[in-house]
C-alpha cells in the first residue's frame, strides 16, 4: 500500500513518490517540480492550457458509440466512463486559436476508457483532418490512447485506415498536420494517423509504443533498454521530432503554425 498524502492540499507524484503541494503542482501545469513527470491531463484542461483563452469551439460533440457488436459489458463500461468524465467518448474536437490563428484540433482523453479509438474517436480525427483541409488551416491532434477499442471489433481496426486516409487530405490541401504524443500513445493510434503527421512532438517521458512492454519482451530476443518506449527513445530512433515541455507547447505549436502554415 502506498501512503496517501495527508490532505487534499498535498498529493504524491507517482513518478518519484514525493509528496507535493497541490498548489505548486497545479501552478506548474501538473508537471512534478521534483522529477519533471508530466502528469496526464483531461482533454478539456489540455485545450484550456494550450490554446487562446475562450477560443475553442467544440464540434461534433454529440457523437457517441452505439455498441454495434453488443459486446459483453461494453454498454456498462461506456456508461461508467461517461459518468466519470462527463464526456461522450474519448475524443474532443473543433476549432481553436493559437495567437489568433485558427487551427482544427482533436484532443484525446485518456481517462475515457484509456483513450481507446472506436468509431467515434476515429470519426472525430477524420473530421478534424478533413476540416483542416477544407478550411485551409493547420490540424493539431493530441494523442493519449492505449490503442484501438477492442469492444468495437473490426470496426475499430478500420478506424486506423480511415484516419490515415484523411491525412492524405491535409497533404493534398497543403495544410500542416501536427501530432503531439502525450502519455501514453500506443498501438493502433500510434500505428495509424499519429505516426504520419508532418511534425511529431511529444511530452517528456510519455510512453510511446506499438505493443505493451510485456508483449514486446515476449516477442523480442533483444535486451530491453531502460528508456524503451519512452518519447525520448522515439526521438533517439528518429520517430519523433522534438520533446517539448508542457509549458513550452503553445509557443512551439504557434511557431510551427506561423512557419509551416504561412502559405495559407
Amino acid at each position: 500500500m502506498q501512503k496517501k498524502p495527508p490532505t487534499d492540499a498535498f498529493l504524491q507524484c507517482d513518478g518519484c513518490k514525493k509528496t507535493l503541494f497541490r498548489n505548486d503542482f497545479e501552478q506548474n501545469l501538473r508537471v512534478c517540480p521534483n522529477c519533471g513527470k508530466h502528469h496526464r491531463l483531461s482533454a478539456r484542461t489540455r485545450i484550456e492550457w494550450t490554446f487562446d483563452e475562450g477560443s475553442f469551439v467544440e464540434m461534433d460533440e454529440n457523437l457517441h458509440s452505439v455498441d454495434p457488436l453488443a459486446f459483453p459489458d461494453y454498454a456498462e463500461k461506456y456508461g461508467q466512463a461517461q459518468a466519470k468524465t462527463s464526456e461522450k467518448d474519448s475524443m474532443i474536437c473543433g476549432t481553436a486559436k493559437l495567437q489568433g490563428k485558427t487551427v482544427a484540433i482533436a484532443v484525446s482523453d485518456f481517462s475515457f476508457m484509456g483513450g481507446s479509438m472506436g468509431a467515434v474517436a476515429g470519426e472525430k480525427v477524420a473530421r478534424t483532418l478533413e476540416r483542416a483541409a477544407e478550411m485551409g488551416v493547420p490540424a493539431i491532434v493530441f494523442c493519449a490512447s492505449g490503442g484501438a477499442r477492442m469492444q468495437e471489433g473490426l470496426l475499430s481496426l478500420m478506424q486506423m485506415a480511415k484516419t490515415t486516409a484523411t491525412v492524405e487530405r491535409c497533404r493534398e490541401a497543403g495544410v500542416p498536420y501536427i501530432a503531439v504524443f502525450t502519455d501514453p500513445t500506443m498501438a493502433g493510434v500510434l500505428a495509424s494517423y499519429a505516426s504520419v503527421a508532418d511534425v511529431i512532438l511529444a511530452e517528456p517521458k510519455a510512453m510511446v509504443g506499438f505493443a505493451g512492454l510485456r508483449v514486446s519482451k515476449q516477442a523480442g530476443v533483444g535486451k530491453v533498454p531502460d528508456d524503451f518506449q519512452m518519447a525520448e527513445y522515439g526521438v533517439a530512433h528518429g520517430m519523433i521530432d522534438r520533446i517539448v515541455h508542457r509549458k513550452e507547447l503553445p509557443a512551439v505549436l504557434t511557431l510551427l503554425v506561423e512557419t509551416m502554415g504561412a502559405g495559407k
Partner: protein
Amino acid sequence: MAKSYKEWEQPLIDLEENIAKLRERARREIDPSKRIAIENLAVEYETRANHYIEVMYARLSPWEKVLVARADKRPYTQDYISGCFSDFLPLAGDRRCADDQAILGGVAKLNGKGVIVLGHQKGRNIQERQVRNFGYARPEGYRKATRLFEIAERFKMPVVTFVDTPGADAGVEAESRGISEAIAASMLKMFELTVPSVSVIIGEGGSGGAIGIACSSKVLILEHAIYSVIAPEGCASILWRAADRGADAAKALRLTAQSALEFGLVDGIIDEPKGGAHRDPIEAATSVREAIISALAGFEGKSGAEIKAERYAKFRAMGIFGE
C-alpha cells in the same frame, strides 16, 4: 474447446487413417468375398468422413474459424501467388537496411498483364517459420510493401495483396526501427494509389499487421478466414484476465468473414472448397484468381482520380456511431 486445429480435426484424421488402412487391407486380401466386405466398409467410412466434413464446416463457431484460419496446412501467400499468377518475380529489400521475409512481394503477370503482388508469408516447417518470422512482419516488410506500391503507382500496375498474419512484429528490434510508422506509411501509400488494388484475407487478418497492407479498393476474404482488431486470446486476457477464454472473445469480437461482410468492412467472401482451402489448394487458388480478375475488371475505364476517390469514400464511411 479444442486448443488447436490438429486437436479439433483429430476425429477426421482418425477416420481418414482408418480408411487408408482398410484400403490397404482390401488390396492385400486374397479372398474375394472378404475383400468386397472390407471395401464396403471403407466406402461406408468415407461417406461418414464426407458427412463429418460437411457437418463440421457447415457451421463453424467463431473459435473453430480461428483454428481453421491458423491451420498450418492452409495454403499460404506463396501458394496463392503461384496458383493465381504467372511469371512471379520476387523483389526484395526496403532500401534502408534489410529484407523482411515475412512479407513476400514482386511483379507478376495476371492474364498477361503486369501487376504488383505481395503478402504476408508464413512458414511450413521450423526453419522456414523462423525465416518468415511466423508471419509477423517487421518494419522492413511494410517499407518493402510501400516501395512496391510506389512502383505500382509509377508504372500503372494494379496491386494485389494477400493478408495472413497473426499481427505485426512487436519486439524490441521492430519497435526501435519504427514498426508503427512503417505500418501507417504503408496504409497512407495505399490511399495515394491511382491504380486499382485488391486485398485478399486468406487466413489470419491480425490487427495492425493486417490492415497495414489491406487498404485496397476491394477487400475480399476467404470463407473461413478471420479478420480481427486483436487476437482473441489477447482480448480475453485483457478483458477477463483469462487467455483460455479465447473462444468467448472470438465470439464477442465478431471476427469471422461473415461478420466482416455483414458490417460492410469487406467487399466479398470467396467460397472455399469443401472442408476448407487446404483440402483442395488448387481449387481454392482458382476461386481466388477469378475473384481478383473480376474485382479488377470493375475498374476498367475508370480514371485514376475516380479509383482513388472511390477507395477513400469506402474507408471513410466505415464506423457505426450515433450523432
